């Protein structure tokens, strides 16, 4: 088969390729790469234009707690997501559950803002979940806790939104596992849960890791979910602080320092992508 690689391109082909790439490259470079670099630069500059680390010390002293809180929330959400998707993915891989896959694909198609609002309505002190619980008559409706506006509400919304993508990646990996291996384990008397946690998950460590990195970054960068759920005082997600600094304080130095801190936390995904590209 005749392979055309980058080195054997004629000048005409190179020009054609460059012309095709130009519009998309221009938009993404001008409206993402350039502002991205500007945010790096601005984070090291004071409002008078002097190079300094003050923005970082200010960002860390005011928002250091929120930064850790954000990482904590994303970490907890990630663990919950991995447990849920591994169990569902395992059940789908090991048994016949029509409709289950379809049901769990739904979150992928529900917008982030809607998820935030839905969780708020569902988990609020007088929300639908508490109403439903009080119908059963087992709980006193007035002492039921409120989960919305709390860490649990955030975790629930972040996990819910990522169920679709998480399951998709998990199931893709599980389906590539050799059938005879599982049958051998089953022959030895392993139950479904044992098969999932002792075979399927460890055998797909790489894919589970990829899924973890991708969803962690998406959770970290999520702005609409914390914006919709809000908080009841106390710590809040770092993206809300960043928004506050820009819109109300208009302190871009500190805002960009916060931004760079979130870039650092997202580096896992960036490194994974880079590895993928260099492999190709």
């Amino acid at each position, binding site marked *: *088969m*005749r*392979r*055309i690689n*980058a080195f054997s391109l004629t000048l005409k082909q190179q020009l054609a*390729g460059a012309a*095709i*790439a130009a*519009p*998309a490259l221009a*938009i*993404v470079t001008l*409206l993402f790469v*350039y502002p*991205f670099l*500007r*945010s790096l630069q*601005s984070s090291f500059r004071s409002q008078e234009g002097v190079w300094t680390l003050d923005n970082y010390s200010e960002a860390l002293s005011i928002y250091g707690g929120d930064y850790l809180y954000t990482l904590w929330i994303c970490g907890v959400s990630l663990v919950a997501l991995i447990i849920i998707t591994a169990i*569902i993915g395992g*059940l789908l891989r090991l048994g*016949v*559950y029509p409709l*289950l896959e379809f*049901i769990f*694909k*739904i979150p*992928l*198609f529900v*917008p982030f*803002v*809607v998820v935030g*609002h*839905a*969780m708020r*309505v569902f988990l609020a002190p007088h929300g*639908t*979940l508490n*109403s*439903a619980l*009080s*119908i059963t008559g087992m709980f006193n409706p007035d002492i039921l806790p409120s989960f919305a506006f709390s860490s649990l509400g955030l975790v629930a919304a972040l996990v*819910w939104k*990522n*169920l679709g*993508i998480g399951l*998709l990646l998990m199931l*893709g990996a599980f389906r590539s596992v050799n059938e005879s291996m599982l049958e051998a384990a089953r022959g030895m008397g392993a139950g479904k849960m044992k098969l999932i946690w002792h075979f399927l998950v460890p055998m797909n460590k790489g894919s589970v890791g990829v899924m973890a990195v991708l969803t962690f970054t*998406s959770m970290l*960068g999520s*702005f609409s979910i914390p*914006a919709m759920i809000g908080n009841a005082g106390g710590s809040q997600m770092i993206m809300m602080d960043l*928004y506050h600094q820009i819109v109300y304080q208009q302190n*871009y130095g500190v805002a*960009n320092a916060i*931004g760079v801190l*979130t*870039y650092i936390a997202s580096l896992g995904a*960036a490194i994974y*992508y*880079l590895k993928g590209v260099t492999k190709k």
Partner: protein
Amino acid sequence: MSKPLEVALLSAPMSERGPWFSTLRLTRRFAIYAISIFMIFGPLSSLLLWSVAEKWFWPNPFPTQWGFKYWQQAFEGKMLSSLGLSFGIAIVVSIICLVITVPLAYVIARNRIPLKHIVLLIFLLPQAFPQLPVFSNVMVLMYRWDLVGTLTGLILIHLVGALVFSLWTLVSVFQSIAEPLEEASYMLGGSRIYTFFHVVLPIALPGIIASTLLVFLYSLDEFTGSLLIGAPYHITMPVFMYNAAGGYEMQVASVTSVLLMIPGILLLFLLQKYMRSEYLAAFGRV
């Protein structure tokens, strides 16, 4: 799942362990479905309930007074213009994406582009880093270029995410098409342009349609950029919903969320067979 395994699963252990075991198995299966349905539909059904609740006094388990008052109100008020704006922008963004990224994704998939790795790297960044910190700097730039609060600005900010997303799905679409088919066309004297339009494009069409619809959904749901660049002059549906929920207009926000959900759910139902998992895998990351 393979047939022999199913048979093995369903027949062998059950006959050995007696009828109580199959009851247990059924109960477990029922529990799995019940929990899953509750997890996914619980929050969504709350939205539906709230959207038709005219009055809802705590602790009544269901709305005290049902009705479509807020639906009517929503359709008479500003929401309608937000709905129109969101759909309009989503259509424009999808078309621009289609025109720009289909040829680009093809040349990338066939290695016919100089500096391919650098080009790909540029298109990776928006996927790998959070949007808000970058978009807030875009806002500063757009103030300088007089684009904040304009439709052009709004479309451009939607395009950043949409182009990247569209490119990634389309590259995987074109990579899945066997190259020998094109080689055959060249052998028979077809030009590159002819081959692209008569051989590649027809095969890629289902993938291109799926990708375009996902871009449409992305633009419809875009929140961060719309809030920073478009508001308060051009309010898209997600921003409208954010404002309504912020003002504790629960019903209006719920009506808006139900409307925002419909296109996605419709696509999910209609396009099951086109939605290959590799397209969706790119989608979830945005």
